[in-house]
């Protein structure tokens, strides 16, 4: 668990976080708003990659930040505030996944390029549809994993966090996290073997294909 990463800007942000938290603890609405706005984008991105969509995002994001503010007094500045908030959010996601009986479904994707996959000459529309179908099938497989394995895989493989960081967020050891990621990967590879769309999506040749969201911010 490290202190703030190096760099003057980060150091200043770290101390500003300390001051901001103190203001939040007094119940100052402006400080609360500022903290929420400072961290909402990152937390939302993390939760989105875990869930695979925005379907339950409002409740989950709200719950995560309420947990943050309720526990803010326990933040002792040993970890960076961002890491600490992410840890709270991951715990909320874990509870959410555990409580969901049904398989997690992603948001319905619009079908403006339907049929492109069947096109004899795959163009940009076909690749986009392939990517979207691939994401849907990927999250369908992830839905069969345990919440801990799903979180470990999404944090490491989809959110791009290191194994150590994912382990810290999960409150687990690096070894256990590595094992969960490996098992999840095996499970996905097994599914891909029987699913050409998923296999196509996971192929390195498909790398770099992202699903565009028109008029929306980059991840």
């Amino acid at each position: 668990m490290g202190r703030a990463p190096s760099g003057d800007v980060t150091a200043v942000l770290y101390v500003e976080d300390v001051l901001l938290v103190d203001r939040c603890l007094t119940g100052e609405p402006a400080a609360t708003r500022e903290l929420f706005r400072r961290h909402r984008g990152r937390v939302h991105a993390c939760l989105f990659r875990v869930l695979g969509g925005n379907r339950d995002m409002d409740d989950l994001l709200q719950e995560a930040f309420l947990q943050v503010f309720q526990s803010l007094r326990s933040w002792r500045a040993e970890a960076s505030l961002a890491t600490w908030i992410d840890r709270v959010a991951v715990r909320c996601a874990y509870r959410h996944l555990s409580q969901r009986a049904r398989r997690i479904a992603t948001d319905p994707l619009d079908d403006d390029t339907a049929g492109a996959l069947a096109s004899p000459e795959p163009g940009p529309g076909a690749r986009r549809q392939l990517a979207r179908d691939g994401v849907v099938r990927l999250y369908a497989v992830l839905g069969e994993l345990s919440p801990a394995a799903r979180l470990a895989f999404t944090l490491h493989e989809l959110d791009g966090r290191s194994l150590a960081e994912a382990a810290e967020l999960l409150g687990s050891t690096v070894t256990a996290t590595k094992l969960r990621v490996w098992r999840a990967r095996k499970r996905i590879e097994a599914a891909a073997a029987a699913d050409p769309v998923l296999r196509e999506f996971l192929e390195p040749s498909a790398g770099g294909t992202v699903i565009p969201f028109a008029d929306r911010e980059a991840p």
Partner: protein
Amino acid sequence: MKLAGRIPVEPLDEERLTNIERRVVTGAVDAAVRGHELRGPQRQLGRAVAAIAIAAAGVVGWALHGAPPAEPVAAEPPALRAQTSAQRSVIDIGDATIESTPDTAFAVTRPDGGVLVAMARGKVELEVGKRGARPPLIVRAGDTDVVVVGTRFSVDYGDGSGEVDVRVTEGAVRVVHQQRETRVAAGQAWRTRAGLVATAGGDAPTATATATVPGAPAVALAGAGEPRGVPTAPAAVPAVLRDHKAAVPGAADAPAAIASPPSRVVAAPARPAGGQPVRQRAAVRDDPHVDLRGAIRAQPVEPALDLHEPSAAGAITRYYDIAAHQSGDEASQAFYSIAAVRHFKLGRNAEALQTLDAYVRRFPGGKEYRAALWLRVRILCLDKLDDRCRAAAYTYLHQAPDSPAAHVAELLTQTE
């Protein structure tokens, strides 16, 4: 399988984000407010445990001495409770002696090393020894807290639903009501509706008269001109409290008799009913020999860490860096230095105070802890001798009672 960055995030629209933000902010503010309140119930558990220990110790003590308590005091778990019937009650809790009038109910607990006397109804009079560095004794009557360092005073809570009447005969107390704090010195009283008012009791040591007639108010405050031990019968609220203007002769000429910051302490010549003049009480600030601001400036201040930076902004950036990357004493010193530079070199006192507040929270055992507390006193009290200044001085005095600046802090706590 390289998937990082290939799942883009679909952003939430503004309306959804605004709704989430609104609910989060509302919930967070509630949580902050509840956080303060919730610590009460958590402390209650500690208080209950402490009270059981007190009660057990009391029983053992009484048993060892072979004598029952002088007065019928019901000490029962989970808290030491006293509910007197037709007679007055006297309880010595070690830190203080509590006298109560008939039909008074209160509980004594010891949260966090302090003493909490929580009243349900009735009237208590306390004599509290100097508490030194220990946490204060607090008398709680409804939503009013009377915070005591070492003094003699009474709290009348009536039937438990009405006003609170605090009268101080020696020393001073702080009354905290609805998050507002008022210092009540000897010779003054405070009531829920009237606020701070003058009483006829001067600063002379007063005697507590005890009525022996059952049913009569048992505890009274004797004025300075009254012989000790002579019972008085202030059955009703004295006129001096009902109409504080009328209570002070010549009030029209001396409106400052109703002490309210930043006016001076009550110094109007008041006369009790008996016509005997009472001594005037002068506050510290009335003493021309005491130049508090000069005294504050004369106290040495822990300097900021010298990094040989030509500019204050550059120094602060480096302090930030140290505070973020180091731990222990180095981080503590850097954090303190940010506040010191903001105050001394940049004159940004509000930012300096914010930093100091954060320092005190982050480094409760830090090397610069006392220095940070003193810097708070210095910044606040050089600006204005108000309640914030006094609160800061009070905190410093109790955290650093043996420091050279403690006597200045003590004087500051006694300002009006």
